[in-house]
């Protein structure tokens, strides 16, 4: 079962790498870092934020995929 779990983690890591491809748009030129590194987000507060531009949105996707990748790497370390 440990092997199964390891396989699962590898699969998910692959997924996260793919998701990571959702990087910053090529023509971005912007280097905005995610302000959501803290988990404790407030839904209502977030909904009040202005609508993201296409570039900002893609940047967010990239940030989140990197966060997931980081956590999956840590998860793998203990298996």
């Amino acid at each position, binding site marked *: 079962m440990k092997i199964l779990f390891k396989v699962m983690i590898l699969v998910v890591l692959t*997924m996260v790498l793919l998701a990571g*491809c959702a990087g910053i748009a090529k023509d971005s030129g912007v280097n905005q870092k995610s302000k959501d590194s803290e*988990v404790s987000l407030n839904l209502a507060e977030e909904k009040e934020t202005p*609508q993201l531009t296409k570039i900002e949105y*893609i940047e967010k996707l990239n940030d989140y*995929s990197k966060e997931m990748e980081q956590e999956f790497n840590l998860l793998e370390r203990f298996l």
Partner: protein
Amino acid sequence: MPEKVDKAWIDLNIKHIDRIKSVTSKYALLNAPEEMDQIHAAYIESANMFSTSLTSMADALTSGDNAALQNSYTDLLRAQDYWNYAYALLQSVADVPLNGGDGTITSDDLKSLDKKAGIDRDSVLNNISKDGRELAGEWGKRKADGSIDVIVVFREDGAYEGYGSNEYPNKDDAMIGTWSYDYITRSLNIVNDTVYSSGVEVDVVRPSMTMEIQSFNGSEIQMMDVDSLNTFKYEKNN
């Protein structure tokens, strides 16, 4: 799961699973641009599936239920399919650098390479509905006389027929079954119910086949058998 499960080991992994779930929860909070509504919905759906499967995984780790762990793994794979679908949608509208590289290779670069192999994944997204109705019809290879040698038939009612070269419509050497389209994986799933050889029903060697559709424009299709990796290019018989 290790034979001798340590509570600290479980707690550590659950802690990381919870952190991953906390990231997946952020997707629903994004105020995406209207032009990316469809993409955002796909990401949220995937994130929700990840969250659900990870919750099941954490529960399975806690209880030591191996069967539940297996189920959560299956769910996780499906969540990955949804994630890949969302990413495919994103790539269809934006040129994004590929992760793990030096940032110089982008999705458009890969698309250029794909096109040399006849692959156009955007055409699959753009030209095939979720129910795959555009796939219905007779498909085959064009012969020297300009006619089409029908190889596969996808009926609108879901019936499938497969023929050897120059056999259609003779069913003496044919495969009969059903087909369906999975828009998430952009794959054709074929189930072979009955196989005939020289007019005699024989054992079904491959009960099911999955064809990844690599390009589609309504009159031409390219698909790859995901098991054999053989590629098939057919034209529609009008």
